[in-house]
């Protein structure tokens, strides 16, 4: 006899956490440079979400907007009365207002970055709650629809989120809208076993979503999804920012240098004695 749980719950029931990039500067740049406007984007995404909800009445979709000054939940199919993604529009509008009110600087040069790390963290918290909810929970996965360039300040935070996701085996799919690749998302998908994709035809977003990102975790066992182009995990040194394949790591703050220094420029600790390790020791070590 099949175990109770599996009988009660289909294996393709999935919880989809969608992080949409609502960085206004990014989108206006898109409006200017490409034909792919935010409204197009929205209709593609909404259609996608609807189809996800259509596939299985127990599928759950949660949408988090990662804005320029803040992040917030804009849609949760489990709480909303109607199982339609259009519901998120009102909340999205409110969110954008709030986001605007929060912003200080009058205008930014360049596109600036949206708060990916924040929305990622929130998504993970939500997923943890689903995990806590009991043995029977939908299979969670995260989908980042992200266009803005990566925010330097966020690196550590994003990495933390990525590792936490990896630990709880939550794949992070990422779809880089816009013209630019994202190092963050690429690593995220690579480390967590998700899919990283950068649509060539931005107008075909829905097709990409429905062909690649609609695949539930169960089916991924049988399907070959686009594999990431080899991610280069070499680091580049703090001092010259060029990629190195051998370097020196500060044992205190783990900053990377391409040649030997007397003093760590990051944490200011002096590299005193014990620079020579005697070969005999190293010999014994193996």
């Amino acid at each position: 006899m099949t175990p109770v749980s599996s009988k009660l719950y289909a294996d393709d029931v999935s919880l989809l956490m969608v992080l949409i990039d609502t960085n206004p500067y990014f989108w206006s740049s898109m409006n200017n440079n490409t034909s792919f406007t935010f409204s197009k984007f929205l209709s593609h995404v909404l259609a996608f979400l609807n189809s996800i909800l259509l596939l299985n009445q127990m599928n759950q979709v949660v949408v988090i907007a990662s804005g320029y000054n803040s992040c917030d939940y804009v849609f949760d199919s489990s709480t909303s009365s109607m199982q339609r993604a259009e519901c998120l529009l009102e909340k999205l509008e409110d969110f954008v207002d709030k986001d605007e009110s929060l912003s200080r600087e009058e205008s930014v040069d360049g596109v600036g970055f949206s708060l990916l790390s924040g929305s990622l963290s929130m998504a993970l918290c939500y997923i943890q709650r689903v995990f806590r909810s009991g043995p029977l929970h939908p299979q969670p996965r995260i989908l980042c629809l992200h266009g803005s360039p990566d925010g330097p300040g966020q690196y550590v935070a994003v990495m933390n989120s990525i590792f936490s996701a990896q630990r709880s085996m939550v794949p992070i799919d990422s779809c880089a809208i816009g013209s630019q690749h994202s190092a963050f998302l690429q690593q995220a998908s690579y480390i967590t076993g998700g899919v990283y994709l950068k649509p060539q035809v931005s107008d075909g977003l829905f097709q990409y979503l429905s062909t690649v990102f609609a695949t539930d975790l169960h089916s991924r066992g049988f399907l070959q999804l686009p594999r990431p182009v080899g991610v280069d995990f070499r680091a580049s040194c703090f001092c010259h920012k060029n990629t190195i394949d051998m370097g020196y790591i500060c044992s205190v703050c783990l900053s990377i240098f391409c040649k030997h220094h007397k003093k760590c420029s990051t944490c200011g600790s002096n590299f005193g004695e014990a620079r020579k390790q005697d070969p005999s020791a190293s010999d014994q070590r193996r």
Partner: protein
Amino acid sequence: MNNEEKRFNQEEEDEEEESGRGREAWERTYADERSWESLQEDESGLLRPIDNKSLSHAQYRRRLRTATAARIQKGLIRYLYIIIDFSRAAAEMDYKPSRMVVVARQVEAFIREFFDQNPLSQIGLVILKDGVAHCLTDLGGSPEAHIKALMGKLGTSGDASLQNGLDLVRDLLNQIPSYGHREVLILYSALSTCDPGDILETIQKCKVSKIRCSVIGLSAELYICKHLCQETGGMYFVALDEPHLKELVLEHAPPPPAIAEFAVANLIKMGFPQRAAEGVISICSCHKEAKVCGGYTCPRCKARICELPTECCICGLTLVSSPHLARSYHHLFPIRPFDDVSPLVLKDFHKLPKNCFGCQLSLLNPGNFPGPQVACPNCKQHFCLDCDIYIHESLHNCPGCESLRNAKTISDMEQ
């Protein structure tokens, strides 16, 4: 006199036996889990299960306070030896099914957690048995290898000798480079140490060679263990039961604060190997099998390695990938512990957020007034207790701060 102690708890064991013998095995399991103790009487005199959630949470917060009080150096590169006492005492049945099994289980869990948190560190296993210490595995970075070795070597006999153990480990640890943090974690079941010589000297020697020794006892507090930990700046705790033991063991997973006098900053030469190109076949030097693509190549000696992080088995260069470094970054930028929201604030809960900022869980109790919650000192967002734990133990960044650009800049200034 260790004999006496031995005898006494021997007798106690016997009594235990007596009481246990009457029942069937399956009955005893019920007796042992003491289900009645998990009940408490509420004001109306009804029996209801204790909610030890809030209790444990309070406990956890206390730990947190001590852990990340200030921005301090952590021993990110650790060389840890786990000394496991598999002496006669480890065969005791007070932990089910036996101390040995429980300890082994916990060690396994610990090893995995350890490497998850300290990808650049190494572990070695030592077993105390028959009055001597056997080196089960020497320092290495692959969890599976250690676990396999340990599971192969289960079985208890003879006495435990703390001194032999420490001596052995000290010799081994003296070989490692100075920047590494030398640590010993001892899981001690016995109530006595049966040493060939004067252990106090050994302890002093450990202190000299900067080895931080921590002990987790399974039976009762021993003076000598306490002394050892005090001298070497380690922690000494005695486990009450299995969950407590688990907690105590896992407390050693995050890197310890670096002690000023011990801390030696240094540059470590590391290699960042590239993944082998598609379609390249080569014999990997770790398992000596031909590997079609995949695997990494040591940048210095061009040897083929299967997984990272590791030490190149040809030229001994430490090989990592940048994410492995990134894994440890959160130790450098710890998040502030959250503050409990005081009942006073909770009084006028109309202006408080209704839901946990992290997981949207309602913060209101059934009675529709705010339940227990915490707030981030930086971004002032409110979180539920579960999120609090998750954020500090696994996520390592505050959703509130991360999702507020301005708040973020503030925290940056502080850094």
